[in-house]
């Protein structure tokens, strides 16, 4: 029996089915999960340079706390302003702002990665580990 491998294109999966993986989803998965080749191979390993991102987040840090508090503050301001009069407009503006502030660290990491890679140095990149949001307590 022979089975063919399909490249996972847009055709896979029924409409309304699972969502496809974003770059952030992919980073979550393939950089620190899966079989580690070093565990199997010693002699013929090629140490190729990797330009990747350490995307782990340390949840509890002072910086995170301050950001949460700031989000509450924005919420309060939004509520007060809406009481004061301009409900719709202000609501829109603040929720937009809140959204951009609380955007994913991973999304940010993805962007960082793109930035890095867009600097045109196609030949030899220095192995660059970008640490995003990595505060030690």
């Amino acid at each position, binding site marked *: *029996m022979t*089975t*063919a*491998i*399909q*490249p*996972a*294109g847009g055709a896979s999966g029924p409409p309304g*089915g*699972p*969502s*496809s*993986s974003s770059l*952030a*989803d*992919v*980073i979550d*998965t*393939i950089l*620190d*999960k*899966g*079989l*580690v*080749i070093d*565990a*199997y*191979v010693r*002699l*013929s*390993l*090629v*140490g*190729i*340079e*990797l330009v*990747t991102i350490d995307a*782990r*987040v340390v*949840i*509890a840090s*002072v910086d995170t*706390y301050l950001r*949460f*508090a700031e*989000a*509450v*503050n924005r*919420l*309060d301001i939004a509520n007060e302003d809406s009481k004061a009069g301009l409900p719709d407009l202000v609501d829109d503006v603040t*929720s937009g702002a809140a959204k951009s502030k*609380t955007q994913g*660290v991973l999304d940010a990491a993805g962007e960082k*990665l793109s930035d890095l*890679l867009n600097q045109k*140095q196609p*030949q*030899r*990149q*220095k192995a660059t580990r970008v640490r995003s949001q990595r505060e030690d307590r």
Partner: protein
Amino acid sequence: MTTSQETKDGADRPQADSAVYVYGIVPGDVEVEESAQGIGDPPAPVETVHEGDIAALVSVIAADRALGTPEDLQAHAKLLDGTAAVVPVLPLRFGAVMTDEDSVAEELLREHHDEFAQALKALEGQAEYVVKGRYDAEAFLTRLLSENKQARQLSDDIRNKPEDASRNSRIALGELIANAIESMRNADTKTVIDDLDGIASQVNPREPTHEWDAVHVALLAKVERQAELEEVVGRLSENAGGRMKLRLLGPLAAYDFVVTARAQG
């Protein structure tokens, strides 16, 4: 960092300048479609290296190029996830490179042949799925402030003081929020795992990777039961109202379930 080092004669590159990128390991009867695309720019063709009953999915790549562009990452994931939808595959972590195809056959496949063959057999008919949930920050905070007196007091205190005088209160409020997220995350994760119990053969909760992460769970399930999975996740998402958004990713290669005794180190 490098200024210029022109070695761009790709055509007559000597052998040592190429290396073999390994994506994963599949049963030996698998054939790769010609349209399958690997990593690199332009995407390298995907080939198989056979040994006994198993094979490796590989691409020949230039040895002097750093890996890790978004396209590289996506290509690695797409190839393996596309494979996982139809045949069992043992995914390697991104960035596995060996010297040449012979060493892939001998050192990787022959040395560990039985171990890999067994793992592939165990994966037959199954694939990985990931359930990801994210809290709506505004909804979460609004609810917390209305239900939690201490949060309300801290928030008032912060508003009535100049910024540098309120630092301690801001930290205390932030910590309270972080703890509230964590305990809600634990509860929601438990609910999701309980509800998936009948469908998943294995479950592996992942660490959160975002501060508003509500649920991050990998599971192994029969591909033929995907519709049931979608139904469960759809229902959970509906039950949550606007509180959190759930997504189901998959079928994916079983990245979270291929830990072998030796790889675990």
